[in-house]
């Protein structure tokens, strides 16, 4: 798949299409869609912006590459004046007072936002069923889940309703739905893109991530959103990734994969066979492949959820209905807090808040939370040693194929375990891309911290190899 951004840009410049017609066509498709991807349409804003782009083109002015390109935004990003619900009852009428840095950078580049996209409430889920807007349906089979938590975003890209969408990835929430809907989805290195204006789930792993149909479009959008931001002090300055740099993969000499991921009993036999066939194709290209040892899946999942629940319990404690949100008044302030939170949070969100407060409380924190932090250190150390041996780590995205709608809600523990292959890279804060190749739900390409360029380079190589 070639860059859709470049293709549409050329069509706009050549006046083959008007920006207004392009935006209207995509808005119509979003409005008519039956996959439950839309929380709210930004039609007035989008059409106003499109008219401005058309006026510029008519005037003979030069337009930037992203000018007039329609995109989607997961409904956990602040965009001033728009509803930002996090797919929750608590915030169903909440309006953003300001705009997230990553989104502002795209707006400044002229991209046109069409839609706030359906997702798991506060990012709490792996199927986009934990939402007040109805379960997101998979782009390829509407009986299956869209994946989560950025399900609406991945489905919109897969269905061509948006050219690209901005998801959020805390433990796999961009990569897994990208895999389930066969599109590209990147979780950049933690800190490469500002989190300012992204509703916090687990702050130490939350990442802004683009979803698109080509490596080139991922590169373009990543470059625009990256950079240091005084409003998120975990951000760092990064250099732009050039198109030319991605064409040459000669510096990738060694690829590793985690043996225990593939030998696990939980992996679908077809995903296993397809993954191993992909490894053989890579070897045939003269790249050395090494088997690596890694932590057991249940330890990865438990470490991630322990820390993520502790962080979300803390982050969501601000949501009490005092200053904003769907307040339910009771006899006093404390009762009002409790009733508001009990009535407005979903079962899954409550489960995670309670879990987080369990591990943060006296008597449990040493045994669980602090040990979780120590395990995270060990996992990071493991990655550091691995990247002394290999340039890239390749892994499946998920052990299985997308479940049927309704199945994940019945068994939350099984849903947590389905994140086995994505959460480790989140804990390591590493750049990881889902490429829609190699297995039915794609493969993940991971490099060392700050080496997002190498990830995209390998994705280009893979595109030409298999």
């Amino acid at each position, binding site marked *: 798949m070639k860059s859709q951004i470049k293709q549409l840009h050329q069509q706009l410049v050549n006046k083959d299409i008007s920006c207004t017609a392009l935006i209207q066509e995509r808005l119509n498709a979003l409005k008519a869609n039956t996959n439950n991807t839309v929380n709210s349409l930004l039609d007035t804003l989008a059409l106003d912006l499109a008219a401005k782009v058309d006026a510029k083109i008519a005037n003979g002015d030069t337009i930037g590459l992203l000018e007039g390109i329609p995109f989607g935004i997961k409904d956990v990003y602040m965009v*001033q*004046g728009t509803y930002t619900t996090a797919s929750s009852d608590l915030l169903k009428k909440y*309006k953003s*007072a*300001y705009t997230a840095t990553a989104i502002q950078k795209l707006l400044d580049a002229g991209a046109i936002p069409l839609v706030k996209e359906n997702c798991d409430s506060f990012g709490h889920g792996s199927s986009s069923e934990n939402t007040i807007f109805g379960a997101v349906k998979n782009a390829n089979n509407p009986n299956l889940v869209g994946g989560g938590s950025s399900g609406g975003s991945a489905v919109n890209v897969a269905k061509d309703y948006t050219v690209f969408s901005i998801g959020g990835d805390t433990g796999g929430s961009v990569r897994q739905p990208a895999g389930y809907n066969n599109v590209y989805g990147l979780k950049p290195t*933690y800190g490469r893109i500002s989190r300012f204006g992204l509703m916090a789930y687990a702050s130490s792993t939350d990442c802004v991530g683009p979803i698109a149909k080509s490596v080139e479009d991922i590169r373009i959008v990543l470059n625009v959103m990256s950079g240091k931001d005084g409003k998120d*002090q*975990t951000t760092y300055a990064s250099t732009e990734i050039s198109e030319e740099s991605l064409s040459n993969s000669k510096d990738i000499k060694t690829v590793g994969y985690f043996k225990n991921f593939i030998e696990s009993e939980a992996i679908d036999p077809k995903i296993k066979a397809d993954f191993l066939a992909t490894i053989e194709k890579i070897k045939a290209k003269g790249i050395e492949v090494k088997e690596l040892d890694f932590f057991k899946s249940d*330890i990865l*999942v*438990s*470490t991630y*959820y*322990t820390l993520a*629940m502790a962080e979300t*319990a803390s982050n969501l404690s601000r949501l009490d209905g*005092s*200053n*904003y949100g*769907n*307040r339910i*008044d*009771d006899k*006093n*302030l*404390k009762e*009002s*807090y*409790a*009733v508001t*939170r*009990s009535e407005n949070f979903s079962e899954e969100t*409550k*489960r*995670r*808040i*309670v*879990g987080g*407060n*369990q*591990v943060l*409380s006296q008597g*449990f924190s040493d*045994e*669980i939370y602090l*040990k*979780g932090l*120590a*395990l*995270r*250190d*060990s996992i*990071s*150390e493991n990655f*550091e040693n691995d990247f002394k041996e290999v340039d890239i780590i390749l892994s499946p995205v998920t052990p299985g194929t997308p479940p049927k709608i309704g199945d994940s809600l019945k*068994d*939350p*523990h099984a849903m*947590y375990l389905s994140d086995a292959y994505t959460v480790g890279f989140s804990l*390591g804060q590493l750049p990881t891309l889902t490429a829609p190749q190699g297995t039915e739900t794609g493969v993940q390409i991971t490099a060392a911290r700050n080496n997002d360029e190498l990830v995209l380079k390998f994705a280009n190589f893979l595109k030409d190899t298999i």
Partner: protein
Amino acid sequence: MSKIMTVDVLSSIKGAQPSEAVNKLFDVIKNAQPTNNNSFNNNHNNGVSLNDLRDDVVIESSAIEKQIIIENFPKAKNGYLVVSKVIEE
């Protein structure tokens, strides 16, 4: 200080109970053996150096930002936020 607070109180969620699905995750952690036992986040230090802190200045919100914040008030009277009666314990 010695008062025991249950998770429903800590979480401000009525009737909340620890769940079996989540406890299963915690059991794995209890039995796991980290290769080191420090818990100081050594390998992913995202702290900001003192030289790199942003200026400690007050930034005035825009008029539209203030207006939206007021629109989001669950209950307002004469442009002010109304809160429930505060209790003291």
